[in-house]
């Protein structure tokens, strides 16, 4: 039993996948060509770089919409990495995870957008940009009533 289970456990790691494939099933479908493997490595490195850049914007971002946008793009990077790992490992069980993470990112973006929209008119809204509210004209909306104690 253990001897049957061990290759499966080894196959869970990306580095151990070729060795486990040789040990477990000799009739396994032929793996990717060298060009595709190199492309997979490049894609993983590039997507990691993109995730670092998104994290920088997530930490740095001066306003809340910046952070929400960075989180949305981060979720999309996770989906992309799942797809690249599907190609690399030649295993299709991750595709449901890709769809689930995509839906989760979309729903969280919509939720945060609703939150920003709902708390926009408050005098001390926690968006971090209350210092200079005069850069944008409030187009398409009724003029907001100033709170009694707030400066005009």
């Amino acid at each position, binding site marked *: 039993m253990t001897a049957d289970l061990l290759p499966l456990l080894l196959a869970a790691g990306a580095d151990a996948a070729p060795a486990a494939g040789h040990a477990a099933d000799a009739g396994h479908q032929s793996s990717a060509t060298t060009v*595709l493997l190199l492309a997979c490595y490049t894609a993983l490195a590039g997507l990691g770089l993109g995730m670092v850049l998104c994290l920088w914007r997530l930490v740095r971002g001066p306003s809340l919409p910046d952070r929400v946008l960075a989180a949305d793009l981060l979720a999309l990077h996770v989906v992309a990495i799942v797809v690249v790992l599907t190609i690399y490992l*030649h295993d299709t069980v991750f595709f449901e995870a890709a769809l689930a993470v995509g*839906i989760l990112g979309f729903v969280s973006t919509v939720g945060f957008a609703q939150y920003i929209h709902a708390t*926009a008119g408050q005098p001390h809204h926690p968006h971090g940009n209350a210092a200079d509210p005069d850069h944008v004209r*409030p187009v*398409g909306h009724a003029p907001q009533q100033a709170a009694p104690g707030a400066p005009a």
Partner: protein
Amino acid sequence: MNTFFDTLAALFLLGGLFSFVVGALGVVRLPDVYHRLHAASKSSTVGMMGLLLAATCHLGTTEVGVKALMVMVFLFVANPVGSHLLAKAALKAKTPVWEGTLEGDQE
């Protein structure tokens, strides 16, 4: 034939990767939140399409074709909707615009 489709998959993969990296660079480098939304939403949609086409080329349409198509259609609907909602919310929250924005461009 396998080599041909794998090379095609590698090309799609690198194209999608290029789009993703450009989008992430735009999110870091562009001046305000509306420019960053412009960079993030479109480039990530196109990049994800490239990656899913690469997966379909490598694994075959019977394995992941329908799922890849589902993800593609969902992202093509969800990404513009989410970005539009976020842009409207940012506009309502009076997020500062870039100083070079023309007057009346926010409408």
